[in-house]
């Protein structure tokens, strides 16, 4: 789960990190009022979760009321890399001399967190890493020992941060690590951490991603999730408890197990179709989950056909078939053609039970995908 900038800044401020004064606004009027309270100049920033907002026109500076109004009008309602902007953060603009990068992320290959500091903030840190890896000082942290202030100082001095602010930057890093640890973050970064003309440091942006598997013990952060959700169908998938990702093609996909569903998507592409989604209904296939999954895929207007692929392991194929039949009872005719393939334990019995007046059946994964791709092409014409 990714927090919005304003949400992450709230968490940062509460932890004692220096953040600029800011207010959230959902209209040009509200943005101007906020700017008046904060005092000009201000930055008006789109609250959508995409990288490179600035370059894409999602951040503008305003020196007075008319500039603030026109900036807010420009940004509110705009489409930023596919996401609709309905809120802006109005923020005190800071005069700065340097832009630094400070962050903590999980190094999955090492199985432990890594803290990073660079004097080349303000740009995508992954680009810096690719161009000039030495420009980033890295320090791995033993998670059972934690990060101690000396380790933060080592990273900061190694990065070559100006000694006037080095201790402040080290303190920011120590606090970020504490947040990372306490709040089950998988990634946390300040980019840029601005050094102001007064020689202070301020977190001008904030990124904080929380481990979905730890939300059960981060209740206040979990409550922010609904606001952070993007796509309507993805929000619906959350409600049904499915792992779901929406794509841009026209062949809907339902299956069980992440690896097998990904493979089904790849096969749709391999046989000349375009996958519309990833949907993993998980273990078993009770009628209710099957009908929820069909509801999801049918309600995606891009979908022209559906492939439903279940490999029954411990779950028996005949039980899955009964689940599918039960879910299909509500339809006289399906809104979109569905091709089913069952495999594994009791698959043959399952195939016999399936109501083939409503769904098509194929014996292999490859055949089912090819058939669904054909049906999508027919519908498309």
């Amino acid at each position: 789960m990714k927090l919005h900038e304003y949400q992450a800044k709230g968490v940062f401020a509460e932890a004692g990190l220096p953040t600029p004064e800011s207010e959230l606004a959902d209209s040009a009027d509200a943005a101007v009022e906020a700017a008046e309270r904060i005092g000009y100049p201000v930055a008006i920033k789109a609250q959508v979760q995409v990288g490179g907002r600035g370059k894409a026109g999602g951040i503008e500076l305003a020196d007075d009321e008319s500039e603030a109004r026109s900036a807010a009008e420009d940004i509110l309602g705009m489409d930023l890399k596919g996401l609709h902007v309905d809120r802006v953060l109005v923020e005190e603009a800071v005069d700065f001399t340097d832009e630094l990068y400070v962050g903590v992320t999980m190094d999955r290959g090492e199985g432990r967190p890594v803290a990073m500091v660079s004097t080349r903030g303000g740009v995508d840190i992954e680009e810096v890493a690719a161009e000039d890896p030495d420009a980033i000082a890295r320090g791995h942290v033993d998670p059972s020992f934690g990060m101690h202030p000396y380790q933060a100082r080592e990273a900061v001095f190694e990065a070559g941060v100006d000694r006037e602010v080095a201790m402040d930057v080290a303190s920011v890093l120590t606090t970020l690590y504490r947040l990372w640890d306490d709040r089950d973050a998988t990634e946390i970064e300040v980019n840029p951490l601005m050094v102001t003309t007064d020689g202070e440091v301020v977190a001008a942006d904030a990124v904080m991603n929380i481990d979905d598997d730890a939300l059960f013990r981060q209740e206040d952060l979990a409550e922010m999730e609904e606001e952070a959700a993007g796509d309507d169908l993805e929000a619906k998938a959350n409600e049904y408890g499915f792992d779901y990702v929406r794509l841009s093609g026209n062949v809907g996909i339902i299956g069980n197990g992440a690896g097998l569903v990904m493979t089904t998507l790849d096969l749709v592409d391999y046989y000349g179709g375009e996958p519309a989604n990833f949907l993993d209904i998980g273990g078993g296939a009770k009628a209710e989950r099957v009908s929820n999954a069909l509801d999801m895929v049918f309600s995606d207007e891009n979908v022209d056909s559906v492939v439903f692929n279940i490999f029954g392991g411990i779950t028996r194929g005949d039980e899955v078939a009964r689940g599918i039949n039960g879910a299909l009872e509500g339809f006289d005719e399906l809104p979109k053609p569905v091709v089913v393939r069952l495999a594994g334990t009791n698959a043959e019995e399952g195939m016999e039970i399936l109501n083939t007046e409503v769904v098509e059946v194929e014996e292999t994964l490859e055949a089912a995908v090819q058939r669904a791709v054909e049906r999508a092409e027919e519908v498309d014409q």
Partner: protein
Amino acid sequence: MSVLVGDDTRVVVQGITGGEGKFHAEQMMDYGTNIVAGAVPGRGGQEVAGVPVYDTVSGAAREEDADASVVFVPPAFAADALLEALDADLDLVVAITEGIPQQDMAKVYKRLSEVDTRLVGPNCPGVITPGEAKLGILPGNIFSDGNVGFVSRSGTLTYQVVDNLTQRGVGQTTAIGIGGDPIIGTDFVDALELFEGDTDTDAVVMCGEIGGEDEEEAARYIGEYMDTPVVGFIAGRTAPPGKRMGHAGAIVSGSGTGTAESKIQALENAGVQVGDTPEEVADHVEDIV
């Protein structure tokens, strides 16, 4: 004959009193696995599925001479259960639990480097040596005894490819589900090392997926150290960047690391035949063995 588990493996089931734990303990016994005990705090002295339950893993291991455990403990308590198992001087711990917080796993991973116990998982279907024993939730009936080693990050994809092999009469020495999480115990390189050292394994199938760089590391290992032929498959060629595809570890980063292309390329450079479809994987294996 096999790696990791066999008919002499003596197994403790952690979480045996839960629905999943009890069901799969029975399934494992039906398959022939030597389940000797359960471990559930506060439930010592009871009997479940015909085996004694102990309050602690070390108690179970000591009293029943166990050398392996399978963990079905819910995610919030799983890391503690894993640490307990790592302290009980077992040879092998198989963690089935899906959804363990990453920071908990980072602490387990650290501890793992300090003990001699091997961890498989978490978020995995387990390990099976066909005809001898299974530790986990794999459906035993689709596997058959043979000479192909199998290692995969995904459960149902394993079943799909193994089923294709078994239907062609190609059996397996051992199949290892290493799990779909970003932080796991046994990785591809560890599993490949085991198969390379097993005289009965004549070929290895390795099913990877997007995310991380384990497959690239495996390719380096294969290129440098392996004589046993390897056939590969990588899931997630069509996955968009920045989206978690079901598994917590299956994510292509925004900057483009962890892509299927990079993994396929690395494996092919190391001489691995990579199938475009599960059927093609079975074709390649059939050609070899």
